[in-house]
């Protein structure tokens, strides 16, 4: 990867002087990832996912050589916009990708639109993103897609009342809103909606409050990669003893962190589109090559989104027969359907929104390690907020 970046630099230095023929032979993909700072673990998984894809599929597609350039946005929105501009103007990338957080993706919107370069959203999960630019295509998932299945499951499994506890920022508030909406439509009751500051290291007050309200279930959402601290304190507060079920979106039992959490999380039910344990040939191949090229790291939902992001780019290039024109690529990405390691994936042709499969999973011990084991497929959900 590093060599590719250096190559990218060298290439950019001669970009304008380069022979036009050479420029047509390579298609450059510029990824903007949080490689340092608070979200560094997300960036690491995304990079690893791209690496796995390239190891599996090579760098040749439709007669073109794909070159990936990765930049570190340090998790700051205004830097991501500058990086996107530089990638477009200097490196002449044909596709942008990555984007760990919603504001980071949103900041890139004007650049994608102005430069007519498709931008593949891998992780940012606020629904509204894809409406910001006609060149945004999402391969990850959105908050309602993750939250609806667990709300449905809770309502169907004897849970009458719930308390929600989310991180106090946009996706957290979305999770709270969509859970309440769906759960109450199915006859449940949300007793209280608690929001913990993003930077909060101590959840004691919120967890105690949730416990004192004596709901049937506690619903959790924190950004992926931040679940370890929360789960630690959830376990310590002994919800099982108080007969309160703990449910969450899959971000909390992130594959990256799950194995460290210990047996106390056994049996916890979550909803998400990806588990490293997903039972399919595609996933087995993916996990195998991912671990091989990434020092035995276990892939999580970020890694699979990056993998699928590269896949969409390759598929679009195949469809355009190697033509890297931005409009043609976006058109080719719309409506793509393929078998992802997550299961059947689709890009909505009308909204450019991902339609991932969704599963209800339970934490179990398998081969000595903790996994989210899928036990119910809820089927794909279109994001309800797009018209």
């Amino acid at each position, binding site marked *: 990867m590093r060599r590719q970046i250096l190559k990218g630099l060298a290439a950019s230095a001669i970009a304008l002087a380069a022979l036009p023929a050479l420029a047509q032979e390579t298609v450059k993909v510029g990824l903007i990832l949080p490689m*340092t*700072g*608070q979200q*560094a*673990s997300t*960036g*690491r998984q995304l990079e690893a996912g791209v690496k796995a894809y390239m190891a599996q599929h090579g760098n040749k597609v439709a007669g073109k050589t794909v070159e990936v350039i990765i930049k570190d946005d340090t998790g700051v929105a205004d830097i991501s916009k500058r990086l996107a501009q530089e990638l477009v103007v200097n490196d002449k990338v044909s596709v942008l990708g990555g984007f760990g957080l919603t504001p980071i993706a949103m900041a890139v919107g004007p650049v994608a639109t102005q430069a007519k370069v498709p931008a593949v959203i891998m992780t940012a999960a606020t629904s509204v993103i894809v409406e910001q630019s006609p060149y945004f295509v999402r391969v990850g998932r959105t908050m309602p897609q993750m939250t609806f299945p667990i709300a449905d499951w809770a309502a169907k499994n004897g849970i009458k009342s719930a308390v929600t506890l989310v991180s*106090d920022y946009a996706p957290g508030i979305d999770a709270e809103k969509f859970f309440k909406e769906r759960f109450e439509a199915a006859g449940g009751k949300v007793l209280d909606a*608690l*929001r*913990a*500051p993003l*930077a*909060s*290291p*101590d959840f*004691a*007050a*919120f967890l*105690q*409050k949730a416990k004192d309200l004596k709901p049937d279930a506690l619903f959790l959402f924190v950004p992926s*990669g*931040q*679940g*370890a*601290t929360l789960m*630690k*304190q959830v376990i*310590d*507060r*002994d919800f099982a*003893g108080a007969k309160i079920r703990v449910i969450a979106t899959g971000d909390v039992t992130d594959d*990256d*962190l799950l194995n*460290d*959490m*210990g047996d*106390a999380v056994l049996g916890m039910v979550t909803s998400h589109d990806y588990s490293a344990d997903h039972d399919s040939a595609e996933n087995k191949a993916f996990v195998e090559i991912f671990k091989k090229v990434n020092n035995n790291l276990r892939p999580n939902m970020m890694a699979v989104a990056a993998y699928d992001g590269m896949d969409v780019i390759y598929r679009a290039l195949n469809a355009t027969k190697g033509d890297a024109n931005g409009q043609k690529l976006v058109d080719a990405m719309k409506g793509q359907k393929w078998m992802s390691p997550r299961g059947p994936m689709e890009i909505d042709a009308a909204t450019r929104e991902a339609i991932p499969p969704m599963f209800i999973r339970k934490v179990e011990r398998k081969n000595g390690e903790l996994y989210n084991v899928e036990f119910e497929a809820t089927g794909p959900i279109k994001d309800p907020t797009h018209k």
Partner: protein
Amino acid sequence: MLTILFDGVAYGMLLFVLAIGLCVTLGLMNFINLAHGAFAMAGGYLTIVMMNRYGISFYWGLPAAFVFSALLGVVLERTLYVHLYTKSHLDQVLFSIGLVFMATAVVDYFMGANQQTINLPPSLEGRVNFLGASIGVYRIFTIILCGLLTVGLQFVLSKTRFGSRLRAAVDDGRVARGMGIDVTRIFAVTFAVGSGLAGLGGALSTGIISMDPTFPLKYMIYFLIVISVGGSTTITGPFFASLLLGVADVAGKYYVPAVGGFIIYTIMVVVLILRPQGLFTRASR
């Protein structure tokens, strides 16, 4: 109600142990060491590695974290920090932030960027009933241990020979040296103990929170809040400040969750406006 009080006290105690080393270097040695959190992180990660990779007991992890961070402290003090005592506060800030950057990258390189945590031994898990309130065993453990540490530290500083020498060295280093006190050594030992306490705090906090490479920066603000509210000339000041902040934070979030994010900062600003030298500093400084 009692549960909330206990949670708050435990949280405050943890803040105190994490911050006390910084209080010692700042208040007693007049040195701003923003890399203090890095020593806590070292202790935390050492405990995680010992427990998760080598299966060593948590009870050994705590003293090991103290010793490891103290050694790290003494090595860095002798080689690097010693050149900075005479420099300006701003230089000290720049220097210690540089160290934080390096520590973050080093931990990231060796341990990865994801959050890591430990599983407590069964003897510290679970909850007990106390006067009708359910209280986490680990939080009680934290309170007892931190309480003992505070008493011990206060005793050493005010009642022992070392304590009076340290105070003399701080008040007037040149005179102290003239009196035959080995100021250099006293500072080195003090720095080491401060770093060791940070390491111990880091190890203790792995029982409640998790470690990641951004730990030193993330918690730096909390350390500084404790010290500025408590005043840095005593140990009891930051101690009570930690308790106040811990209880106020937990109780505030419990009873008025809408303003949860503001409580600590507001308390700090109000305290500092009313008492710029800190809440528990005697005016005659």
